[in-house]
């Protein structure tokens, strides 16, 4: 047997492994990969059902709720209709025509006897309320604008998604490495 000598030999071993994998093993790995992706999607859909929110986990994108939340923090939302909207709650809402939801705190509510509610929000770190952000002519938010209420949070972890958004090359690198890992991993 020829003597092994470090990294040069290791990389050849790696390529040999890949070549040795016959077609059946390759299909097996692809199916494995597909199962992982499906399970992840199922978990996400399950979360959507349990929380009642179309977006149960969101990443904070701006500093308007500092010092409580910073860019990159992860928020866990629920959007149960039975939970009434009350002042002090942190809501994630969408303004009509805008894609990106905003995370701010409820400052005022006016609720009618039949349950219709209109409310005003403000970011903790902003000097004024959000009326300037709403659509032209819109003075209040309504239940239909709400994506969810923040019930829990974890700091920092969302930075990865922000990086992947701002630097597409980083996103492709991450996906490429993930794909490579799954395909080559022997299990």
């Amino acid at each position, binding site marked *: 047997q020829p003597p092994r000598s470090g990294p040069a030999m290791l990389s050849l071993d790696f390529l040999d492994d890949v070549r040795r994998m016959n077609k059946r093993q390759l299909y097996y790995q692809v199916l494995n990969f597909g199962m992982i992706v499906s399970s992840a999607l199922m978990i996400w859909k399950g979360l959507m059902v349990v929380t009642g929110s179309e977006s149960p986990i969101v990443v904070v994108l701006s500093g308007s709720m500092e*010092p*409580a939340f910073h860019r990159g923090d992860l928020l866990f939302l629920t959007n149960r209709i039975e939970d009434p909207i*009350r*002042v*002090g*709650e*942190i809501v994630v809402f969408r303004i009509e025509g805008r894609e990106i939801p905003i995370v701010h*705190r409820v*400052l*005022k*509510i*006016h*609720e*009618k*006897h039949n349950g219709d509610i*209109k409310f005003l929000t403000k970011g*903790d770190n902003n000097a004024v*309320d959000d009326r300037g952000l709403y659509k032209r002519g819109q003075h209040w938010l309504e239940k239909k604008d709400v994506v969810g209420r*923040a*019930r*829990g*949070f*974890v*700091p920092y972890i969302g930075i990865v998604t922000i990086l992947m958004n701002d630097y597409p090359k980083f996103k492709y690198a991450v996906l490429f490495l993930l794909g490579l890992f799954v395909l080559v991993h022997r299990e």
Partner: protein
Amino acid sequence: LRKNVEDFTGPRERSDLGFITFDITADILNEKSYLKAFGNKNSIFDWNVKQLFLYLSAEYSTKNNALNQVVLWDKIMLRGDNPRLFLKDMKSKYFFFDDGNGLKGNRNITLTLSWNVVPNAGILPLVTGSGHVSVPFPDTYETTKSY
């Protein structure tokens, strides 16, 4: 937890605008209602509490709306800040506009101090302080007083 207030109303365009001045005396550190709910004996500022977002809200009903809540004042209390508040003659930070004219002659405006516990990581509970104050608004508008 104690609050004292004086008040008067002034009309602005079409909606009632209320003016309230208040004192807040609060001992958040030993707030019993919070401790009972979370079983923590020593301090509300435990290892997992980053800050408290305090807010004073006024709650009332009017002819137009069954429930109205307006935040009059808020404050961020960071871990390490003095947990005892002694605030006197505070003016509300935000304009106390009603949606309509429901403040005039409204006898029952309840002021409550609440806070949002922001942990280093975990659940974000909203806690209402024990003790609240009822404030009546007078039947007439003030036209001359400056604020």
